[in-house]
């Protein structure tokens, strides 16, 4: 019994100390990691969507609490008015989580563009969703209230060839984006009014 306790206790101490130290390190690096992700992942995605806007959407962002989580909305000004918001939502692809940045015109409730941020899809197949313009481009001008479904599931989204599951994941992310947008639109409008 004493021996068993010693085994148990050793592993417990090792794990507890390691876990404690790591959570400290995580807290210290958190802010820097966020800035880096902004610079390398979200930044390019937002710029791709907001091409031609007159402000810097990366600095003009608003944070809204959704339950416990805080969500960021990047605001783009076109014709001098803050009328496009971009935000990230997630779907499940073939190799894990797919992050999709969705830009929505807040006046017309229409998608201005999407861009893929994080993904772990197969290079040459699913990963093409990130680069293929014809795939991403088809969402441009679509109503955000519509259903997003690939053609194989009876919808009207053209999947990336050879990557139906990835395309489905992108649709899933867009469905999530729709839900978030609908829920938080009043809040977004309130914040935009202050800009």
């Amino acid at each position, binding site marked *: 019994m004493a021996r068993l306790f010693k085994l148990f206790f*050793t*592993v417990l101490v090792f794990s507890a100390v*390691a876990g404690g130290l*790591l959570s400290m*390190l*995580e807290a210290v*690096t958190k802010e820097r990691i966020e800035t*880096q992700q902004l610079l390398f992942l979200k930044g390019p995605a937002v710029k791709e969507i907001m091409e031609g806007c007159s402000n810097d959407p990366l600095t003009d962002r608003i944070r809204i609490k959704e339950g416990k989580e805080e969500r960021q909305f990047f605001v783009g000004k076109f014709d001098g008015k803050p009328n496009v918001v971009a935000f990230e939502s997630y779907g499940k692809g073939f190799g894990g989580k797919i992050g999709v940045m969705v830009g929505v015109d807040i006046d017309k409730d229409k998608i201005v563009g999407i861009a893929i941020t994080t993904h772990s899809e197969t290079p040459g197949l699913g990963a093409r969703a990130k680069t293929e313009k014809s795939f991403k481009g088809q969402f441009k001008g679509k109503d955000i209230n519509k259903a997003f479904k690939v053609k194989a599931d009876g919808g009207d989204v053209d999947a990336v060839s050879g990557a139906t599951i990835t395309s489905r994941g992108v649709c899933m992310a867009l469905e999530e984006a729709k839900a978030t947008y609908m829920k938080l639109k009043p809040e977004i409008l309130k914040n935009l009014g202050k800009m």
Partner: protein
Amino acid sequence: MASFAREFTKGLWDEIPPFRFVLGLCAALAVTKSVDGALGMGIALTFVTVGSNVLISLFRKLIPNDVRIACYIVVIAAFVIVVELMMQAYTYALFEKLGIFIPLIVVNCIVLGRAEAFANKNPVLPSIADGLGMGVGYTMALVALASIREILGAGTFWGISVFGPSYKPFTFLLEAPGAFVCLGLMLAVMNIFKK
């Protein structure tokens, strides 16, 4: 100090991990498409081997034999997360390039192998030498493999063109089968020198 030097240098040639033991190949073949990725991976692995060797050697008399592997894994995993967080915070581009292979260092046989075969039985100083030697040897092997693959397969070294625009790259070397062929040839050459 003589033993420090001996423990260090054995990892550089006599026991150079990927070639002599043919261990840790999964990551070694995947990250050697480019020299910068190979160097980054090598440095990450060196840090983890040295760090885990030091801690395991320090606690070698405290860890009960029955749970030693569990304790090693906790220590190694902790160091890997440190690397992962630091890379995300400071060298995000490299983190994106290495991706999944950073967390996979946890299960790299070289690290666990050194803990079990060396740090477990030796004092701290030789363990540092052993970890450092193995790490540097691994880095050298990766960089050598990556140099061949990048120079011939892409016509570049560290992203800079070597042969000029007229060179037609031998892209086969950048694919997985090319990596195996390249590794096999290197092992063959090393065997010639061994005799």
